[in-house]
């Protein structure tokens, strides 16, 4: 029972982590986040379903185009719901991103349809026996992809010129601009990467879940809790916090029963943040005065 819960928790936790990585990217570059990250996840699943099932395309081009459209949506989020407000030093981007997410959810409701649809990928649901447990291929694949993306992000931001340039933007925009860094471009790219990650999460979870317009709402909420828990300034921290949150949820359900899952998991988040205000793996921001 515990081993089964561990496998479930790792799969779910990776999804939370993948979505939370999106929060990390935009926060690291611009100090802002897309609060409707759950809608970006939903768009990934809906686009992939439309291309692969409705149009009958092979999965690889369908997923590739879905991810490209998600990235484009991220640029739109930044241009429409973040930039105009952040430029004026206003925090209204908080509500603007939520509003844009609701707009996306409702547009999908009217265009994609009102009924949830099943995204069947036989290979994804095929089970592999591991240590007496049946583990589906997706449950193995999702944590692997999540950890690979976290590692890739970490090395991109610390080991490449482009990554360092993006991190420089959040520290001092004017100095970054004077050094020749395209600041608006860097922020737009961060938003594109953020929604691309969310889209990837949506495509990965679709076969385990159902595709519908509000499939990402609760995920987005939990992913934000995970991002804060992990310390939003660390890619590894965010991904690990996702895994910890997912496993904790599953373990509470398996050991104590489902009645305690939400109460205890969110209580633990609050306790963790009370003890470690910068999250499990975050560091306090250093400001030179």
């Amino acid at each position: 029972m515990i081993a089964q819960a561990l496998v479930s928790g790792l799969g779910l936790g990776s999804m939370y982590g993948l979505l939370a990585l999106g929060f990390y990217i935009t926060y690291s570059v611009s100090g802002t986040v897309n609060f409707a990250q759950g809608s970006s996840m939903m768009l990934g699943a809906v686009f992939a379903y439309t291309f692969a099932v409705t149009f009958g395309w092979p999965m690889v081009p369908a997923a590739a185009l879905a991810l490209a459209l998600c990235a484009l949506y991220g640029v739109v989020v930044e241009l429409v719901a973040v930039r105009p407000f952040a430029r004026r030093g206003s925090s209204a981007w908080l509500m603007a991103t939520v509003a844009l997410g609701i707009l996306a959810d409702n547009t999908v409701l009217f265009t994609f349809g009102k009924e949830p649809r099943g995204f069947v990928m036989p290979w994804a649901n095929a089970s592999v026996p591991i240590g007496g447990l049946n583990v589906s291929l997706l449950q193995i694949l999702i944590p692997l992809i999540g950890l690979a993306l976290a590692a890739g992000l970490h090395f991109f931001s610390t080991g490449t010129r482009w990554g360092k340039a993006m991190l420089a933007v959040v520290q001092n925009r004017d100095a970054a601009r004077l050094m020749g860094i395209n600041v608006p471009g860097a922020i737009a790219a961060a938003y594109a990467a953020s929604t691309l990650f969310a889209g990837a999460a949506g495509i990965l979870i679709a076969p385990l879940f159902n595709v519908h317009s509000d499939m990402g709402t609760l995920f987005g909420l939990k992913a934000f809790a995970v991002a804060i828990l992990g310390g939003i300034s660390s890619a590894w921290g965010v991904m690990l916090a996702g895994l910890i949150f997912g496993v904790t949820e599953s373990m509470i359900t398996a050991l104590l029963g489902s009645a305690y899952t939400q109460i205890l998991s969110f209580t633990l988040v609050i306790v963790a943040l009370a003890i470690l205000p910068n999250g499990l793996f975050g560091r306090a921001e250093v400001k030179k005065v």
Partner: protein
Amino acid sequence: MIRVFVLLSLLAAAPAWAQTIKIGLVTALSGQSARAGEAITRGLVVAIDEINAKGGVRVGNQSHKLELIRRDDESTPAKGVIAARELYFKEKVAVLIGGLDSPVALAIVPIANENKLPFMDPWAAGTPITKNGAKDNYVFRVSAVDELVDKAMLQYAQKTHNARKPGMILVNNPWGESNEKGLTAALAEKKMKAAGIEKFEGNDVDVVPQLSRLKSAGTDVLFLVGNVGPSSQVVKSLDRMGWMPPIVSHWGPAGGRFTELAGPSAKNVHFVQTYSFFGNPSPVGQKVLKALMAKYPDIKGAGDVTPAVGVANAYDAMMLSALAIQNAGSTEGRKVRDGYYKIGKYEGLIKNYDKPFTPQNHDALNENDYVWAQFIDNQILPVGTKK
């Protein structure tokens, strides 16, 4: 000249309606239960067309045409309440039909009773909907009732699967709670106890932890209560675990594309229904199926009427409501309510009714009216009809 003649002939042929009586419908027309909401609509439309074609409802010496006005509650109690108020205060409906989801129906019950508005429930099975404790009760139902379904579920699990230690996996909402009470009481009556009782959220992706607890507790048959989406998550989680105990379910899976959502194991779920168009339908059954095929091009045969319970319950609910208005000789709420009590024998689609409602009983159907069904491909068939 010929055109004028044709026009005059048509006008002469049309019944002279004294007035239109509005029938309100509040149900889920979007979201996971949209298909069930559409089935209820179709049942009502076919019944109303039939009534109007026969000259409408006679109130006093005048014929009144029936008109259906629909509102989408999106399976949300707050939206259901707003829609119910609008239909009563603005549209002045004579009878309100609705309640696909028990939480929505339960939210509408006080409005109906306070305003003396007859409220007919063609789907939601929550026991307290009709047994709501109100001194002046205006809520009627042509549908399954949780406490009776729960007894039937246990009976079926024992008879078909020799259940000794059934476990419950229930959606975490008032409907799930209603069935937890009903199933626990049904088990207690037979001196049995559940192996375990687990809840899951409507948007849970993975129900494996809850199911693992039930498996560890030695569950031999699963009692499932949830709408189509959540029920499909239970089936997919069981698939991932490689554990497939017999599943005896309330009728949630019937509300949508269960096979598409749950995959090939959908057929393992046996669920309760109040009607099936398969087998040898009665003359009323044949008439309704013919009307459905004529009205809706996507219905080519009995298997396309999905979910059949929505159509059948709504059809009978509308026919019985029209009789109640006719008995009342008025559209005044109290008189229509008493009109339901005056209904005697009526040959309906689901069964032949004989005094279906009394002041003590507002439920027209009982456990003897239930049938067991399963999804085979995309069709709901009585269990064992096809492998």
